[in-house]
């Protein structure tokens, strides 16, 4: 087994032994979907939302919740805890670069996020006839860019927070706007146009996700914006990273 695989396997075991994040990451979006679906009127077409059902508009926002929680809360807390406990410094005295630990954490969280999103899509299809994405490949590509761009923002927080507590506080600065522009607090169709436009270009890319979903063409510029967030975010995180 390569060292990186060994680190990832060990980290995954430790992650699953405090299973709150794993369970929340996988189940929360689906539980929220079912809760929203139980509200009268949510599953009926609404003229206000341009003939869409509210539940259709909510599904991409639930993807946002899953990603934001894992990327902006869980990863920074995990990495900052390792920094606080001296795990990163200890690792820096071995032949293994501590970046291995970051990438392992990233892999685990992305896996949980994807599992949560897959479950959400399945549940939305079965329970509310929300159709599966019309352009599955474009949807996957968009999702991938959305995941990487959101996680790169989380890595910036993880790079600079010296304690788990400060990671939580720093994460909120990103968490609230990402949730807001992703339409978690207010469905995006109900937002003023300017806020909708901003939301089109910021991670995790609610608009391109929705476009790929319903089969209207995805705007390449919006995908490029996500890619830019991913590249710049990761570069910044790597530059700011410190052991202690």
């Amino acid at each position, binding site marked *: *087994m390569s*060292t990186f695989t*060994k*680190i990832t396997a*060990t980290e995954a*075991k*430790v992650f699953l*032994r*405090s299973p709150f994040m794993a369970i929340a990451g996988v189940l929360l979006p689906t539980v929220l979907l079912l809760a929203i679906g139980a509200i009268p009127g949510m599953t009926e077409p609404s003229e206000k939302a341009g003939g869409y059902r509210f539940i259709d508009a909510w599904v991409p926002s639930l993807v946002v919740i899953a990603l934001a929680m894992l990327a902006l809360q869980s990863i920074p807390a995990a990495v900052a805890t*390792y920094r606080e*406990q*001296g*795990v990163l*410094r*200890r690792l*820096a*005295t*071995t*032949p*293994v670069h501590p970046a291995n630990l970051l990438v392992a954490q990233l892999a685990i969280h992305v896996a949980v996020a994807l599992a949560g999103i897959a479950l959400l899509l399945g549940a939305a299809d079965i329970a509310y006839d929300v159709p599966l994405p019309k352009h599955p490949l474009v949807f996957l590509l968009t999702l991938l860019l959305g995941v990487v761009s959101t996680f790169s923002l989380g890595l910036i927080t993880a790079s600079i927070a010296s304690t788990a507590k400060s990671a939580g506080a720093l994460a909120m600065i990103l968490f609230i706007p990402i949730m807001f522009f992703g339409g978690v607090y207010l469905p995006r169709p109900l937002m003023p146009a300017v806020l909708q436009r901003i939301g089109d270009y910021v991670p995790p890319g609610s608009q391109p996700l929705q476009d790929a979903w319903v089969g209207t063409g995805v705007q390449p510029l919006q995908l490029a914006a996500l890619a830019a967030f991913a590249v710049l975010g990761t570069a910044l995180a790597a530059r700011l990273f410190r*052991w202690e």
Partner: protein
Amino acid sequence: MPLIEVTDLRKRYGTRVAVDGVSFTVERGEIFGILGTNGAGKTTTVECLQGLRRADGGTISVLGLDPATDHLALTRRVGVQLQESRLPAKLRVREALELFASFYPEPADIDVLLDQLGLRDHARSYFGKLSGGQKQRVSIALALVGQPELAILDELTTGLDPHARRETWQLVEGVRAAGVTVLLVTHFMDEAERLCDRVAIFDAGRVVATGTPTELRATAGASTLDDAFVSLTRSAR
């Protein structure tokens, strides 16, 4: 050639001078003690030796390597126990050892290591559930798992009860008996007197005395190393 050779090492953080021209050598097979009060520059010096920090001036040679440029080569041959470094609470002892073993080209046999450090009965325990003494034994085991030529042990017995301290001292003697050179950082004089072949006494970023515990007692005209330390560091102030 000495295993460690430090000449005129200097390091400052902003305007605060942490290490102010430190020189000492450590021979192969020794237990060498770095003694000093908190803030004397011990930990900074050791971090420069490990390549965790870059010195502002002076030269360092560890196993013939320069820690600043040969960091990777050095990490393969030096085992480290860090002050106040913990492991994830829900990591089992054996898992931690297996993980660290995978980092090194020729790791030690984990079962033998568990036996040597009296951890066999705790191999399946979570790190977070161990006592202070057991945690220290795990961190010594992790320092040894790569079969290092040099072990750097920082504040090894801080926070341990008298029994656990004595057990830990025996382990360090066992490590040296196995042919590993030991660099021991401590502020406990009884520990240094019991374990160290030679010590360097640090005060305010400088080495104020180097020698065997017996020599230092004689120099200071003191009956214990504790008294010698107080008198040597006071005269330097």
